[in-house]
């Protein structure tokens, strides 16, 4: 259609206005597409967290009395160390940090001391994060602050615990907790000292994520974890550390809230931006409107000239914005949503929505300038030459 040719020639002539308008639509679409594309992943991640997946679990011997457990801080009972390996081998259950420990209160040099054996952290095969808990080499010991102070122990000293020599690799700084009377060693060393070979009294599994039953949104997270682990760890009970997950969930909810606030502001700002540029375009074209009116061009054709331009801006902005927004989501999404990064992918349905909505958005934004163009009295422009 010839009007289309006229529109493109005008666009080519007034490139800056066109490009600025295009950038406005592109920005709005790109941010929206990036938001919804990453948002799909975000919702998946949130849902999994809400399910109790991505939780921190404490697994302790089944017969542990909980009153004692909470008052002492560890179980007096033990369970097989092999449970760590079984947990790690459990299919469909992912984790980022997994370790087995053995804690036991003993009398050492006439003082109450907690001996803590730590198994080096079991890392997932494709682990991206460094170990969260420290590990102690065989034959080494880390001595808690209070014990080091009481017995004047320094790093590099040699100590003996129940007949077994240890090299003091580190004296820990003050924590203000029971850790100050702890001596840490490799799990197998501590097991040997205590005569509890092959036994542990806690497994800590951090950021666990069930990939099998994530869709079952109605299941209580603790129940789900207990049910899944009951078969492979029959002598264990599962505790859930809710706190961290709740904080994360709140953080994500806050992020969603911010985005929900920002998006309308971005869209309104872009709409105003387009409207102002359209107004500028109309002002630049008053003479043209006047002459076209004078030549007999009706309102319909003049509307087509301006709205057609807006539609082209909308279409261009939609296509470029979709590409840009998707690229943003693919580039930055995996850093934000680490556990569900693999699920981030282009949402082509938003391409369809963008090419429908963006031209309407651009047309609506330039509606007032278009109306002013249509109702423009040619005599005002051409009146410049009235004698």
């Amino acid at each position, binding site marked *: 259609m010839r009007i289309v*040719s006229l529109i493109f020639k005008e666009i080519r*002539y007034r490139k800056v206005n066109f490009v600025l308008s295009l950038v406005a639509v592109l920005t709005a679409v790109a941010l929206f597409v990036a938001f919804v594309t990453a948002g799909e992943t975000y919702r998946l991640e949130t849902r999994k967290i809400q399910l109790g997946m991505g939780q921190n679990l404490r697994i302790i011997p089944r017969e542990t009395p909980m009153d004692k457990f909470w008052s002492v801080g560890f179980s007096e009972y033990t369970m097989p160390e092999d449970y760590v390996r079984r947990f790690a081998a459990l299919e469909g259950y992912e984790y980022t940090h997994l370790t087995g420990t053995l804690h036991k209160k003993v009398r050492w040099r006439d003082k109450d001391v907690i001996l803590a054996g730590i198994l080096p952290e079991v890392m997932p095969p494709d682990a991206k994060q460094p170990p969260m808990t420290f590990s102690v080499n065989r034959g080494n010991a880390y001595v808690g602050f209070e014990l080091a102070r009481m017995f004047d122990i320094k790093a590099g000293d040699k100590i003996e615990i129940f007949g077994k020599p240890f090299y003091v690799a580190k004296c820990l700084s003050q924590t203000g907790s029971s850790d100050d009377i702890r001596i840490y060693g490799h799990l197998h060393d501590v097991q040997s000292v205590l005569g509890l070979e092959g036994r542990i009294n806690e497994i800590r599994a951090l950021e666990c994520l069930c990939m099998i039953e994530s869709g079952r949104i109605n299941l209580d997270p603790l129940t789900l974890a207990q049910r899944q682990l009951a078969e492979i760890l029959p002598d264990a009970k599962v505790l859930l550390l809710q706190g961290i997950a709740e904080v994360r969930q709140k953080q994500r909810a806050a992020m969603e809230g911010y985005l929900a606030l920002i998006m309308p502001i971005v869209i309104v700002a872009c709409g105003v931006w387009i409207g102002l540029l359209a107004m500028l375009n109309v002002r630049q074209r008053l003479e043209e409107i006047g002459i076209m009116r004078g*030549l*007999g061009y*009706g309102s319909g054709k003049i509307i087509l000239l301006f709205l057609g331009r807006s539609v082209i801006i909308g279409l261009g902005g939609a296509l470029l914005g979709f590409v840009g927004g998707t690229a943003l989501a693919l580039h930055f999404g995996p850093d934000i949503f680490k556990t569900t990064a693999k699920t981030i992918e282009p949402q082509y349905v938003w391409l369809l929505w963008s090419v429908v909505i963006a031209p309407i958005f651009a047309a609506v934004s330039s509606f007032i300038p278009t109306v002013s163009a249509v109702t423009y009295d040619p005599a005002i422009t*051409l009146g410049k030459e*009235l004698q």
Partner: protein
Amino acid sequence: MIVLRNVTKTYVSGRSKVVALKGVTLQVEKGEFVVVRGPSGSGKTTLLMTMAAMLQPTSGSVTVDGYNLHEMNTREKTDFRARTIGFAFQMFHLIPYLNVGENVALAAGTVGQGDARAKARELLRQLGMEERALHMPSELSVGERQRAAMARALLNHPKIVLADEPTGNLDPENTAAVFSCLSNFQREGGTVVVATHETEAALLADRVFSLRNGRGEPGLGCLEAVK
């Protein structure tokens, strides 16, 4: 036939009022070539734009072929201008992003339409502008722009051509070409009204209508043949 009866046009801007036309009465017969003559500010352009239904008179009436222009709605005026009027503006008003050929063809309502392009080329040839058809307005001299504007006014074979100072910036040779075009148009049955302050133009006209300070020149009468 164009008939203006007691037409007054007053421009109001804030507190100031300028009366551009004061009770002008004029009748232009079909096929006539009328020159509206007068000094700058005498109301010539206002008169032409009123005839073209681009300005609403403050009082009085303008009829063309029996239709009162200012009783028409916007759509009817648009149709009227498209069907009946070819207007060559004093300031040319060429669209800057269209080349000369496209500017001329614009009057056909569709840019680049095959038939309109051929007509545009022929008119540009008559006006000595054929080689400039693909040039942009910014590449033209003032005189060339004026001839392009004239070609655009003639493109649609309107019934009436209203030309505002069409030769104001032209050399004698190009002035002759423009008036030759207008004469050809008149010979084919068209009506021509040309606003100018040049005395020479009157020699080509069937009649001259003089304006001074918005009024028909009293000494000459509102309608006075000079031939």
